[in-house]
């Protein structure tokens, strides 16, 4: 494992990106920051800019207008960076698979490392997903 990636896993900073979701997954991500779940105790911090973030939390099914911006934001993210797709919409577009405005799933636009299913996934599931990602990368060395 590269030194950069190893350093990243100690305290991953996350950036939250909604590509056209119903808000539910976004609120569950915010819930992770509040006292009951409090992911800050694992060293995870919500970064306010993509340029400071190590992990990109993507929610939503993506649409024609937001996809271009998603691509641009991913390019701005410092590498190595990890992408976590949260919720059914980000995995496979869920209910909106037949919509005229959601042409492709997120993982066709940007590479995704972890998928967290659920509509919306519970905060526990989001935390478990991110922890699994870190474990997997730690084993790789």
């Amino acid at each position: 494992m590269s030194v950069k990636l190893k350093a990243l896993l100690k305290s991953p900073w996350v950036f939250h990106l909604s590509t056209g979701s119903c808000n539910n997954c976004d609120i569950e991500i915010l819930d992770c920051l509040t006292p009951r779940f409090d992911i800050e105790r694992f060293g995870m911090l919500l970064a306010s800019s993509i340029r400071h973030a190590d992990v990109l939390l993507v929610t939503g099914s993506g649409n024609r207008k937001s996809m271009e911006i998603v691509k641009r934001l991913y390019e701005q993210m410092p590498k190595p960076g990890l992408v976590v797709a949260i919720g059914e919409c980000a995995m496979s577009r869920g209910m909106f698979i037949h919509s005229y405005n959601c042409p492709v799933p997120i993982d066709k636009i940007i590479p995704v490392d972890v998928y967290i299913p659920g509509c919306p996934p519970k905060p526990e599931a989001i935390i478990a997903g991110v922890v699994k990602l870190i474990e997997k990368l730690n084993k790789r060395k």
Partner: protein
Amino acid sequence: MAKTIIPIGPYHPLQEEPEFFTLTVEGERVVAIDVNVGYNHRGIEKLSESKTFDQSTFLVERICGICSTSHPFAFTRAVEDIIPVEVPERAKFIRTIIAEGERIHSHLLWLGLAGHFLGYNTVFMWAWKLREEILDVMEILSGNRNNYAMFKPGGVRRDIKSVDIPPVIKKIDSIIPTLEMLKKAVIDDPVLHARTKGIGVLSKEDAINFGALGPTSRASGVARDVRKDSPYGAYDKVQWDMIVTQNGDVFDKAVIRILETFESIKIIKYCLLNLPDTEIDLNLKDIPPGEGIGHIEAPRGETFHYVRSDGTNRPVRHKVRAPTFMNLPTYKATIIGETISDATIILAAIDPCYCCTERVAVRNLKGNQIYDGQDLVKLSQQKTEKIREKNGCLKWI
């Protein structure tokens, strides 16, 4: 003085959802505002036409994660209006309980975010901690934290068991002291007064002219609430007060939301203790041809659904109007003339929900022409003609 344009968004750390504001400022004062939405558009009205009435209930639940009861409530009421039919009493009470639970969690969510926007993160943490308790109540009653899936045309999908009622009431009672503390902390705080009193004032005339809804209008002294004006569910059987304040500033909007949570707790407790013992579902089979409307009071204001049926099991037309669509233009009245530092809290004060509001416009690549429905049909026909011509078929048009 030279005008400066400040873009906010579409992905901004303060925003939960993607939306794009263009603030034109002179020095520190905002002189014009423009809002650009559409980053969330998923074409739900069109998708709904390809789903059955039962499936559409789940689809409209996902219009907005926070209003995941309001939209199915309005939709099922619209479908029941086509027949027309009254749902059983017990179903009405269960619907009311779920809708009020959603109102509490939505208002607490807003209160937390408002504190966050003001840089008062203590309020954010307290409000969201309290909100978890309400989500627990909803999980006990419906099995889910956010998308409750309790509604179906003709009734509710899940009954509330009598053994669940005492623990739920105990849980609801246990949050009241913390809520009282939070109320005092917000309403009596001199720092919050300095930041929110007299900021972003929406006058009564403006509230009426812009057609503002829900807490946004009630904070300006317009006593308008669907729950009182045309009662649905169990609201006409419960004693509760409509909260109306007169100033129309950000502070009053916060006060309205805090006091409404107490009313909601009152309604939930009454409904749980007085659940009538009837059926919960009418088992509707066929929806006759016709059209129906359903409107209910969502946490942000009146949600309105229109459904037209042609006798099949799918809606032919489904129209959704969410409260933020009406509340959004009030920015023109509230934000002009305020300082840029107050802009964030004024933008947040109407409790905007952009994923409810999304509309779509189709334009050509140059951006100089916007197509309407007829133009799109014409374009589609022209394309068909081209394919037919290419393959040596006769002309249709």
